[in-house]
């Protein structure tokens, strides 16, 4: 070989090696080696779907493999959750799910899968349920609402996106705190619930924020109370939460990413690092606030504790239902 060729080879080799060295960040070696699939157990376009897509929008600045969101619906979420649990625990298949993970077992027996089949990578956003009503009712606080409910037991109708959901449990919490009895009517989601409220078919609605935010801003709906301390940048006014009015329950709806329970620790670390970077990025923060959820980041063990506390309070509320 000529000297020139050797030199060029050497140069190329050096370049390649330095590239390799430079691009080996805190990630476990070669992870991820293929696209990361995140399974969503609910239909596309919903709150969880929007949240995870928003989070992973700019993933190409963090890892060089694409992140694909896959919708596996059915069985009230069981289908998707099960598929994720049965996937190879190599970190390339994950699950995105919110508080449904804690509420599903409360109302369903003999589930083939549950939280114990997963390890949380991290909790990345928080939203709450909020009680809304029409201006024509004349109520300005949850106390007004409770008063009206006391005067007409079982008559006031409150719409919720679905039964056995955190939103439903939040209404139960209000009932318990004020000793009232309202008629809870489930609709198939936050949007239809708001639709029913705007059409004056129900007296109040408790969807998951930020559903209905636009109606509140337009003056078509009135905010009464939120189930947890949420921050809604676009909301003009103060957010009173359960704790502010003395309701001792706190119902937060968090969304988390999960990995199958047998995922090895070093992969888990990489996942935490990857998603942590995305969750703490300005892009995500801006998006989340603009959309109306609170961006947070609680990785691994912190997430487990957080989720555990949430599960306990959900369980307590669930007992009040039957």
């Amino acid at each position, binding site marked *: 070989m000529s000297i020139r060729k050797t030199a060029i080879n050497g140069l190329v080799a050096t370049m390649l090696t330095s590239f390799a060295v430079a691009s080996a960040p805190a990630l476990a070696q070669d992870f991820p080696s293929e696209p990361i699939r995140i399974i969503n157990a609910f239909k*596309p376009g919903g709150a969880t779907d929007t949240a995870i897509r928003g989070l992973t929008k700019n993933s190409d600045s963090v890892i060089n493999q694409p992140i694909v969101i896959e919708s596996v619906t059915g069985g009230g979420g069981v289908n998707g959750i099960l598929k994720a649990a049965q996937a190879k625990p190599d970190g390339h298949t994950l699950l995105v799910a919110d508080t449904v993970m804690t509420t599903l077992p409360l109302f369903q027996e003999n589930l083939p899968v549950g939280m114990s089949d997963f390890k949380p990578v991290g909790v990345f956003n928080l939203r709450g349920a909020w009680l809304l009503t029409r201006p024509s009712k004349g109520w300005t606080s949850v106390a007004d609402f409770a008063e009206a409910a006391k005067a007409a037991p079982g008559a006031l109708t409150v719409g919720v996106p679905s039964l056995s959901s955190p939103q439903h449990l939040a209404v139960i919490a209000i009932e318990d705190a004020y000793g009232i009895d309202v008629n809870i009517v489930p609709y198939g989601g936050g949007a239809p619930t708001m639709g029913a409220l705007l059409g004056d078919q*129900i007296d109040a609605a408790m969807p998951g924020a930020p559903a209905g935010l636009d*109606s509140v801003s337009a003056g078509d709906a009135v905010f009464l109370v939120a189930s947890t301390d949420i921050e809604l940048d676009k909301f003009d006014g103060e957010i009173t939460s359960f704790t502010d009015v003395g309701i001792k329950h706190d119902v937060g709806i968090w969304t988390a990413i999960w990995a199958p329970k047998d995922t090895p620790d070093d992969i888990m670390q990489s996942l935490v690092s990857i998603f942590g970077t995305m969750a703490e990025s300005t892009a995500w923060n801006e998006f989340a606030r603009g959309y109306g959820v609170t961006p947070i980041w609680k990785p691994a063990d912190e997430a487990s504790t957080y989720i555990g506390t949430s599960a306990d309070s959900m369980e307590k509320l669930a007992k009040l239902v039957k």
Partner: protein
Amino acid sequence: MEHLLSAFGNVLYPTNLALLFAGSTLGLLVGVLPGLSSPMALAILIPVAFGMEPVSAFMILIGIYVGTKTGGAFSAIMMRTPGTPAAAATAMEGYPMAQRGEAGRALSLAIGASFVGGTLSWLVAIPLVGVIGLYAVRISSADLAMIGILALAAVSSLSGQDFLKGLMAAALGLVLSTIGLDELSGTPRLTMGSYHLLGGIPFLPAIIGLFAVATVLVDASDGSIAKPPKVQNTGYTVLQVAKELWVMRKILAVATTIGSLLGVVPGVGSDTAGWLSFAYVKKLIASGRLKSDRKIGEGVPHGVAAPEAANNAVTGGATIPMLTLGIPGDGSTAIMLGALMLFGLQPGPLFFRESPDVAYGILVALGIANFTTLLAALMFTRPFVSILKVDRAILLGSVLVLALVGGYASSNTGYAMLIALLFGFLGFFMHHLGYSIPALALGLILGPVIESNFRRALLITRGDFWVFLTSPISLVCIILILAIGGKFCVDLLKKRKFQRL
């Protein structure tokens, strides 16, 4: 007003227009293939749409949405297997027309009618943008339940050959729709312990099975399957189509109205619109008010035009509540809603005020999409008709794979594919025994809508059944249902013997 005009300028900008055209073409393709559906395509393309400006991204999404409504007719006419559930009614007369060598005519009519339906409903919806939303939410649960039952009764009575058999099929569809987790009480029903059934019978694979797979099975008995098909007359000019459509204008107007109205009602949508319009045409012919040299089932052109106009008219009705209230009318608009939120936009009462360029842009795109779809469809008619030169055997075999894999794709589970297969068998038996497949399909689709709204209505009034009579829409529906039933009894009494029941 200026917003509307500037939106026009925006949409008609060459790059956006090109994107809209690309979306329409893609939508046509998705519509043609039985295993693919509009929500599926939209969901897959959302990540792609991200890299663009919201208005441009929606050019593609809206293009696909409108395109699929027209594309479904292609396979319905040529293979009797609807590419999308909404086009199932088109196959009833479309396929016989193709059998007579009139595939070109049928396709042109379908394309033209789709264009008319979509554009008309859009033109009417634009000035009513603010109002439609307000009225949409006033439709109560009681109304929704009754609308669903009326649709079911109407289709049972008019499509399919025997009323009682049609009703039985519809009832079976309703029963099947209850399988799974009960939304209102959270308890599993009829699941026989299997957690697969916890999610119920997935709708898309079932439809694919009933219409696509069953058709192939039925045709398998046909000995002439491998022989070269009938020569198609492809010389059909735009002028001829326009003339034919003009003659049908009254029917098209009714069909468009049906579609627009049903589009606004959440959950009912384009599948029902197609069938109701077809039922309307059938009734006109049966009562002699529509003169045709052919009988129903032999290739009545109106039977192609009406459903196609209706299912395209749905787009206007379904998109408006999505934009003005954030309430989606069907699966596709639900995904578009999600896409809007991903862009950081909030559809609702303030949408048009806060993001006028996007809001009006989408609105305008919806209308222009009819034109781009028309163009794309016309370009594809020739090649598609020439596909018919291929052996039916090969077409059908391909349809089978498309159907089965498409069934799988709808939820990424093998269970979905099995459903497609099983419903294919069911469809085969139903076809031979004379039970109405459309009635079953509609029962399956409308079951959840009818039941949840029925129970919700009673929940709100705490058990008071009077609500069904006090709500005006509901009352009208009940009267119509009784009218249908009454007419049937009267016919029965008129002819004592050799009665078709």
